[in-house]
C-alpha cells in the first residue's frame, strides 16, 4: 500500500467518528422534539386530557405554535407563557395578597436583596415592631413594589432554602459517614438510627417539621427537612463508597506504612469521591420535590406556597397552566443544576472510569 492509501483509511475512520457524533446529537434532538409533540398532542381538544394539560406554548393550535416558534412563548394560556408573564409580577398573586416581602421597613422595601434575605430568615417588620422599637411606620401592603408579587422572588427564596439544606445535610452526612470509617463505634450508633429514618418515607417526617417550626421559625421547616433527608442519604452513600474501596488497596497502604490519618486522607477521601458525588446528585434531585412539598403544607412564602395557592385557585379557574408551569420550572431547574454538577464531578473524578461514565 502507498502512503495515499494510508491517508484514505484514516480519513474514512475520521468520517465514521464524525458521523456517529452527529447521529447522537440528531437523536437527542428528535427525542426533545417528540417530547413536545406528545405534550402538544395531549393538550389538543380531541385529547381526553384536554382540560388537564395546558399546551406548552400557547392555545392557538399546536401546529401553528410550532411554526410560530418563539412567538408562542408570549401567548397567554400556554404553560411556558404563563410562567414567563408572571415571573416579574403577577396579577393573580396581587389579588390574593400573596407577596414575598415580610420586611415592610420603608428603608428596605425597595431592596430585593434585603427582601430575599428577610424571606429566608423570616424577619418581619410590622406595625407592632415599629411601635416596640419606635421606628418608622411600615409600608402598607398595597404599596409594595411589583417584584414582591412575582413568581421570581418566591422561587429564588425556595431555591436558596433547598440548596442551603442540601449543603448542611451533605456536610453533616459526610462528617458522620467518613468519621465512622476511623471510629467504627460511630457507625454502630448511627446506622440503626439512619436505617430506621431512612426506610420510613421521609415525607412522614415532614409534618413534624411543619408542626414544630412552621409557625415560629418557618425557615427551619424547609431547610430542616432537606438537611435531615440529605444527611441520611449522604451518610449511606459515604459508607457504601468506602465499602466499595477494594480491601487490597487499603492493605497495600498499610504495608507501605500508612497511618489511619494518612490512609483516610489519601485513600478513603479521594477514593470515595466518585460515589459520594453520584450520591449527592441523587440527594439533590430528591431534595427539590421534598423542599417544595413541605412548603405546600404550610409555609407562607416560596415556590411551594405558589403551588399551594394554585391548588385552591385551580378548582375555580379550571386553568392548570400555572401548576404545570411551576412543575416544569422545577423540572428544568433540576436538570440544569444536575448538568452543572455533572461537569464539576467529571472534573473531580477524571482519574476514574466510573466517574467518566457518570450520566451519559
Amino acid at each position: 500500500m502507498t502512503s495515499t492509501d494510508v491517508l484514505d483509511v484514516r480519513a474514512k475512520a475520521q468520517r465514521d467518528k464524525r458521523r456517529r457524533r452527529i447521529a447522537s446529537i440528531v437523536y437527542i434532538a428528535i427525542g426533545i422534539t417528540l417530547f413536545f409533540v406528545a405534550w402538544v398532542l395531549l393538550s389538543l381538544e380531541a385529547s381526553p386530557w384536554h382540560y388537564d394539560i395546558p399546551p406548552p406554548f400557547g392555545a392557538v393550535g399546536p401546529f401553528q405554535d410550532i411554526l410560530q416558534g418563539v412567538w408562542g412563548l408570549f401567548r397567554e394560556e400556554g404553560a411556558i407563557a404563563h410562567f414567563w408573564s408572571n415571573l416579574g409580577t403577577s396579577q393573580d398573586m396581587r389579588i390574593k395578597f400573596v407577596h414575598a416581602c415580610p420586611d415592610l421597613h420603608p428603608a428596605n422595601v425597595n431592596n430585593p436583596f434585603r427582601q430575599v434575605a428577610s424571606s429566608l430568615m423570616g424577619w418581619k417588620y410590622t406595625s407592632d415592631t415599629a411601635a416596640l422599637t419606635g421606628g418608622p411606620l411600615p409600608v402598607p401592603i398595597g404599596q409594595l413594589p411589583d417584584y414582591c408579587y412575582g413568581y421570581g422572588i418566591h422561587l429564588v427564596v425556595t431555591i436558596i432554602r433547598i440548596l442551603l439544606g442540601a449543603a448542611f445535610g451533605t456536610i453533616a452526612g459526610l462528617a458522620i459517614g467518613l468519621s465512622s470509617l476511623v471510629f467504627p463505634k460511630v457507625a454502630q450508633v448511627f446506622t440503626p438510627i439512619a436505617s430506621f429514618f431512612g426506610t420510613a418515607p421521609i415525607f412522614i417526617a415532614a409534618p413534624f417539621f411543619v408542626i414544630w417550626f412552621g409557625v415560629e421559625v418557618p425557615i427551619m421547616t424547609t431547610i430542616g427537612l432537606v438537611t435531615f433527608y440529605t444527611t441520611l442519604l449522604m451518610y449511606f452513600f459515604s459508607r457504601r463508597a468506602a465499602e466499595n474501596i477494594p480491601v487490597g488497596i487499603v492493605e497495600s497502604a498499610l504495608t507501605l506504612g500508612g497511618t489511619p490519618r494518612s490512609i483516610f486522607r489519601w485513600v478513603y477521601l479521594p477514593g470515595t469521591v466518585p460515589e459520594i458525588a453520584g450520591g449527592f446528585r441523587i440527594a439533590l434531585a430528591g431534595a427539590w420535590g421534598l423542599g417544595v412539598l413541605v412548603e405546600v403544607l404550610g409555609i407562607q412564602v416560596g415556590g411551594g406556597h405558589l403551588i399551594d395557592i394554585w391548588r385552591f385557585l385551580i378548582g375555580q379557574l379550571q386553568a392548570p397552566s400555572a401548576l404545570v408551569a411551576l412543575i416544569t420550572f422545577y423540572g428544568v431547574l433540576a436538570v440544569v443544576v444536575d448538568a452543572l454538577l455533572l461537569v464539576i464531578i467529571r472534573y473531580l473524578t477524571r482519574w476514574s472510569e466510573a466517574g467518566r461514565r457518570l450520566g451519559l
Partner: protein
Amino acid sequence: MSLTRLLRILFWVGWAAWIFGSGLVVLAFSSLGDWQFEEGTLHLTWQFISFWVVLWWAYTFVFRYRRSVAAVIRIGKGIVRLPERILNAVKNNPLFFITWAVLLVGWQIVSYIAPKGTLEHPLVPGFDYIIYNALYRLSGNWDLFGGFSFAGLTLQFGELAPFPAIEGAESRTWTAVFLALGFHSFMTLSRLVAGLGVGLIAGLATGLALPYWSALRQISWAPFNFLRMIPLLAAIPWMQFALGVDLRATTLFIGFGVWVMLVVATMNAVANVPDRYIESARTLGASRLRTYFKVVVPGAMPELRTALLLAGGLGWSLTIAAEFLGFPTGLGFMAAAAVQETNTARLVIVAIVVAFYSLLTFYLLNQMFNRMVSWMPQRVSGTTDISKVAGAAGAAGRAGDQLHE
C-alpha cells in the same frame, strides 16, 4: 414442556380461579357471612372477608401440603427461638440496643421538659400520652364513611365492624383502634400495591425494550431524563386536578413515578452488562434477539437491586404524600388529620406504622430479587467490612506510634 412446569402453571391458574371461587363458596353458604349488592355497592360483613381469606389460603395448604406444613413448622420454630436470638443479638451488637434505649428514654425525658405549647396536644408527646391518649383515640378514626371503590363497584366497609362505631367516648375500644389502623393500612397498601405493581411491570418492560434498538435508546434519553428530574411530590396538586381522587388516579400517579425511575435505571443496567458476555454469545452463533433475552436481560438483573428498593421507597413517598394532600382515607390521611389538630402523638403512631410497613416492603422486594438472581455469587461477608479495615488501620497506627517511641 415438561410435566413439572405444566403442573406449576396449573397450580397458579387454579389458585387465581380459586380466589373468586372461594368467594362464591362463602356466598353459597350464607350463614358463613352476609352480603348485599345494591346500586353498584357491595356490602360485605367482616365474617365474609375472614372466611374468604381462610378458604383462599386453604388452597395452598391442600395442593402444597408438604411445603405448607414445613413453612408452619419453620415459623413455629422461629417464634420459639426468638428470645434466644434476641439475646444473641444484644450480646453481639450491644451498641445497637443501647442507642435505641437512649433514644427512646431521651424522647420520654424531653417530653417532660419540652414546652407544652399553646395547643391542645403536647409538642413532644411522651409514650404514656401516645399509647393511652392518642392510640386509644384512634378508634375515632374507625368510621362508617369508608368505602373502597373501583371500576364502578364500591366495597362498603362500614358494616365490616363486629359492632358499629358510635360517636362518643363509650365507642372507644381497642378493637376499634385496630380496625381503624387495619382499614387505613388496607387503603394505603392497596393504593401502593396497585401503583407499584403497574410501575414495576411497565418500567421493567419499557426499560428492557428500549435499549434493544439503539436509535430508540438515544431518542428516549432526553425525555426520560427530564421526566425523571421533575419533582413528582410537587406535582401532586396537579395530579389531583387532572386525575381526581380515586384508586385509578393513585395507580396512574405512583405507576408513572415508578415507571420513569425504573426505565432510566433499567436502561443504565443494560448498558452496564459487560461486553464480553454479549460478544461471547454472538460468536457462539446466537441471534441478536436471543442474545438480548438470554444474556443481556439476566446480566442486567444484579444492578437492579438498588433500583427496586428505590422504587419501593418512591412508591411509599408518593402514596403517603398523595393521601396527605386530599384523600379521605389511608395512613397519609391520618397524618394529615393529625397535622390539622396539631396532634404530634398521632403522627408518631402513623410514623411507626409506616416505618414498619416500608421495612416489610423492602424485605419483600429483596426476597423477590434474590429469587430472580439465585445464580449470583453471594457477597462474602467480612471481606468488605470497613470497620475491620479501619480497626486494622488503627492497630497499625498504634504499632507505628510505639515504634516511634
